[in-house]
Every structure is written in structure tokens, then in C-alpha cells.
């Protein structure tokens, strides 16, 4: 069980000054190392003594991992850039406002000042059975306590649940998927660039992780291509309280129009599954159609196909349907 202690377990604190040093330390420490970005997820684990790494590699001193840089092909954001800096950066605000809106919706101003974009997309699940240290599937056990007849699962998954029903809590992840971002990973085999969608892992593939990061891997930056710069964006997050809360559901879309018709679209949702979901079926269904309430209605219906509610989260199905509808039609046009 989780027991809140006054102090964290002892660990070796390593503070590299460069990305190269960080990689060396990761290699040297192996699976015993824990990467510390903003610390907002990490310190929960450490203070609850649910994780006891031998070494903590604090990336806060690695300047290469910070900042937003314009590139010939778009923009590159260091993984250690704070959410506040992402949300306030002029280039992000002007060209990729979708990400600014998503970053601004995270938690509270204090948390955004400390939390990083790399940490936000890499954070662990918030299922309280898992966070409490119960031996559930995600913790290496053989049961999902949330998916039982009396499990508390109001915040849990309605799609792609397989044994574990925890959801990914990131707000920036669906925005990055909608923007077709690429994640740059530093691995033992060198640098690897993958699409945002592929960064996330569901329980069908690996029930103990939310991302493809393995011990020793490091997310160093996020590249957003210019493809969707200046498109029509929509981000909406539904939560129990309007600040300092994880999403019950969020949606992000990027749309370009030709006249009133949807020429290109990418749309993603999060907090409905263990990984943020790009809604490819919705994209196919609405491409070439007018951007209006009827198309939004149809898109919402398509989006929730296959959704399976748990005991206490049936509300997420109409919620997702309506958010997708609004993302397609635009909030004002939706009835």
C-alpha cells in the first residue's frame, strides 16, 4: 500500500550538464536509473515509496533539452521546455496554437512552470489502484482492480481496454498527434525519430508502460512539421474542476479547409484509453465534407464506435461523441 513518508528513499542524484553526459549516465546506470524532468510525476512515486530507483538523473541542467527553436521544417521543442514556455512562446502561439492551448490546460500555473513537455507526454497512468501500489496488471500483477464490478472507474478507459483500464492523462499528447509531431529519442542504438502516435503504447502491447521508452531511453525533443502551421485548430479539455485537474477527456484537431469543405484533418483524443488515440476513421469520414453541425454529428457517432463503458464511466461515451462533434463542427456551430 502507498504510505506517505516525510522523506524519499535514498538515491544517487546525478545532474548531467549535457545531453551526451546524460546519455552516458543512463548507459552506466542501466535499468536502475530514473529520469527526472519536472518531477511532478516522479516525486509522487518517490514520496509514496512506490518506486525506489538507485539513481536519479536530473535533466534540469541540460540546456540543450530546453527551449523552442524554429527550424526550416517547422519547430523543435526541447523535451525539458516547461509547459509555460511552450504555451507562451510566440511561434507556438502564432503557428501551432493547438499546442499552446493544450499546454495551457495542464494542471495549474505553478505546475506548468515546473512541468515539462517531455514529462507531460511521458507521465505514468493516474489510476489510483496502480498509484496506490496494488499488484495490478500495470504493476506486474494479474488483476485490474478498477475493472471489477465495484471498482472505482469513473475516469477510466472506454476504448482499447485490455485487462488494464487505466488511461493516459496527458493534455499535450493529443495536440502533438494532431500536429503530426515527431518525437526524437536517444537510445542505446543512437537517435531515433518516431511519430507522436507511435510514442504511446497500449496494454495490448505492453501493459506496464504508457510509452515506448525503455530503460536507458530518453526523449530529447519534439519536432512539429510546418505541415499544419496556421491550420484551424480546436482543443477542448473536460475536467471535474477548471484548474489543477487531469482530463476526463480531451480532444485536439487540426483542419485545413478548401472553401467550406474539410480538405485535410488530424484529430486525436485522450483519457479514453491507455494511449492517446488518433481518430483515423473520423478523419476518413469527414474529409471532403462541409465543416458543419451535420458532419460533426456524424463524426461523433463514428468516433465512439466500439466504445465499451465500465461500471461508472458510461458518461464518457456521449462526452467523447460531443467533443468530437464540436472539434469537427466548431463549438459555435454545434447545437
Amino acid at each position, binding site marked *: *500500500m502507498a504510505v506517505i513518508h516525510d522523506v524519499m528513499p535514498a538515491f544517487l542524484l546525478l545532474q548531467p550538464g549535457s545531453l551526451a553526459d546524460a546519455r552516458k549516465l543512463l548507459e552506466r546506470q542501466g535499468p536502475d536509473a530514473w529520469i527526472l524532468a519536472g518531477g511532478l510525476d516522479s516525486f509522487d512515486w518517490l514520496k509514496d515509496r512506490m518506486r525506489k530507483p538507485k539513481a536519479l538523473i536530473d535533466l534540469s541542467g541540460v540546456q540543450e533539452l530546453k527551449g523552442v527553436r524554429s527550424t526550416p521544417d517547422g519547430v523543435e521543442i526541447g523535451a525539458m521546455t516547461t509547459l509555460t514556455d511552450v504555451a507562451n512562446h510566440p511561434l507556438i502561439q502564432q503557428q501551432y496554437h493547438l499546442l499552446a492551448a493544450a499546454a495551457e490546460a495542464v494542471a495549474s500555473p505553478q505546475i506548468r512552470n515546473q512541468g515539462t513537455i517531455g514529462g507531460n507526454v511521458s507521465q505514468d497512468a493516474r489510476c489510483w489502484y496502480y498509484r496506490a501500489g496494488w499488484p495490478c496488471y500495470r504493476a506486474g*500483477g494479474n488483476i485490474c482492480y478498477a475493472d471489477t464490478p465495484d471498482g472505482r472507474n469513473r475516469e477510466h478507459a472506454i476504448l482499447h481496454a*485490455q485487462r488494464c483500464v487505466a488511461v493516459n492523462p496527458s493534455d499535450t499528447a493529443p495536440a502533438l498527434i494532431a500536429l503530426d509531431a515527431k518525437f526524437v529519442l536517444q537510445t542505446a542504438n543512437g537517435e531515433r525519430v518516431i511519430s507522436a502516435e507511435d510514442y504511446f503504447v497500449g496494454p*495490448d502491447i505492453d501493459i506496464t508502460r504508457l510509452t515506448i521508452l525503455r530503460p536507458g531511453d530518453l526523449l530529447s525533443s519534439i519536432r512539429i512539421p510546418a505541415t499544419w502551421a496556421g491550420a484551424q485548430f480546436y482543443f477542448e479539455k473536460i475536467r471535474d474542476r477548471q484548474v489543477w485537474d487531469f482530463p476526463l477527456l480531451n480532444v485536439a484537431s487540426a483542419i485545413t479547409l478548401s472553401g467550406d469543405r474539410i480538405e485535410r484533418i488530424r484529430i486525436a483524443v485522450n483519457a479514453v484509453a491507455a494511449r492517446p488515440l488518433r481518430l483515423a476513421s473520423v478523419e476518413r469520414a469527414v474529409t471532403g465534407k462541409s465543416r458543419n453541425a451535420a458532419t460533426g454529428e456524424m463524426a461523433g457517432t463514428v468516433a465512439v464506435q466500439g466504445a465499451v463503458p465500465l461500471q461508472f464511466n458510461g458518461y464518457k461515451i456521449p462526452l467523447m461523441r460531443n467533443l468530437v462533434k464540436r472539434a469537427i463542427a466548431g463549438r459555435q456551430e454545434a447545437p
Partner: protein
Amino acid sequence: MNVLQWAIDPRGHSVPIHIAWDLIQVAFVSAVAFLIVHAAYIRFFAGEKQWSGTTAPDVVAAIPERVPRHTLVARAFHWLMAASMLTLLFTAFLPKVGVEFDWVTLHWIAGTVLAASVVFHIIHASFWLDFWAIWPDQTDILDAIRRLRRFFGQAVPAPRRFAKYPLENKGFHGAVIAAGLSVIATGVFMMFRVRTIFFTRNPYLFTDVTWGWMYVLHGLAGVGLIALVIIHVYFGVRPEKRPITKSMIFGWMSRDFVLKEHDPARWTVTAAAVRRPREEEALRDAS
């Protein structure tokens, strides 16, 4: 190295959750070590097989050129079971050694196929096949003792030829029954914990401890099957065993191989083949 993994359940009890996954490597290495030792023994040390007893010329004449060994239904069962077993092993253990894919659905579907085929096999073998042919009999045990004593250089008569199945075959079948029924029985209950088309999920069907031991038994039998399957495939491709393997494909064995390794008195190849020795036996007893 731990054999099991334990956890603390919500009530504070220590419960087993599953086997230590290192046992996968242990099973694999053990099986490979066995086959290396066996292959080396056969290659460098083993003498030619020797048998006691002969077959009367009229019995030999009565045996057809191609001796039926496995019916089409039995062969279909074997290969269906093999396919489902391999699917089960790959879907169960590849993800544990780093090959990631959506394995759960494939696993329970393959498990369902295996369970259904085994139920069919039990019924088929009980009512349509010679049920006792695959179980060791007294002769098998006595011959095994003879072979063992000869292995250690003692002067004892050579063993008799096999019945339909060699003792090793029967032993393997017994081991597969034990491991197979264990994974099937536990696997059926474990399907209550995932979403399938068969049962309503009920993770509270048993206590955490009972579930834990069920997962442990499933895992132990599973890693046991890794070793068994490797050994089975090894023997299946060994040159001296190929006639047996071919019979599982084509359904028959050659008369020469049957007469060399199998005793028509113990395996009813034809009506004549079995009647004659029994008559001789009766006459011997009478005298």
C-alpha cells in the same frame, strides 16, 4: 533466482502472482542442453538397437507394405493441437522476452482451439481408438528396466520390440497430458479475467491467493511445455525417428520399420498378425 513472484494484496497478504519469468530461459536452456547431450550420446556412444523375439514368416506376410498407424482424424487433431500449442507458447512468452505485439486475444483464441481439440481427442480416443495403446503397460516397464541394465553393462536379455508406441512416446504423452491439462484447466478460469466472448468477466471468482496459484500453475506448465515442445520437435526431426514423424503426416509406416521396431504381437497391425502369436502363447501355456 526466485521461482515465483509475490506481491502484497490490498488486504496486506502476501500472494503469489506468477512465476519468475527467468524460468522461460531455464526451460529453453534445459531443453537445448538435453538435446545436445542426447545427440552427442547417439552420435558417439550408443550402439545399434537390439531386440529380442522374432516374427513368424506368415505374420510378416500378413503385414501390408504400408501399415496404417494414424487415422486422418487423429492426424488432423495432432496438427491442430500442434498449431494451437505453438501459437499459445509464442503468444505467451515472446512478449516476455521483448517481442511486443497484441498477444492476449490470439492467446485465448488459440487456447480455446486447444481446449476444444483436447476434449475432442479424449472422446475420440476413448471410443474410436485403442485407448490403452498410449499408456505404459507391464511389458514396457520390464523392457525399460532391461534397457537400463544393459546401458550399465549388465548381461540381461534384450528388450522386446515396442507395441504401437515406444515407451518414450508414452512418457511424452503423459507429460503433455499433465502440462496440457494444467494449462487448459487454469486457462479456462483465467478467461474470466479478460474480455472474451465466452464468459462474463468475474475477477472475484476466486480469492487473490487462489488466483495467484492458478497463474503460477499456468506458468509452470507453460514453461514446462516450452521444454517438452523443443524435445518433441527434436525427436521428430531425428533421422531414426522420421518414420514415426512421417506416419503423423501420411498416416502409415513401412512394413520394414514396423517389423524392425514394433512387435506385431503387441500392436494389432492385422488380424492375422495378432492371432498367431496369441495362439502360440496359449499353446505354450497349455503345455
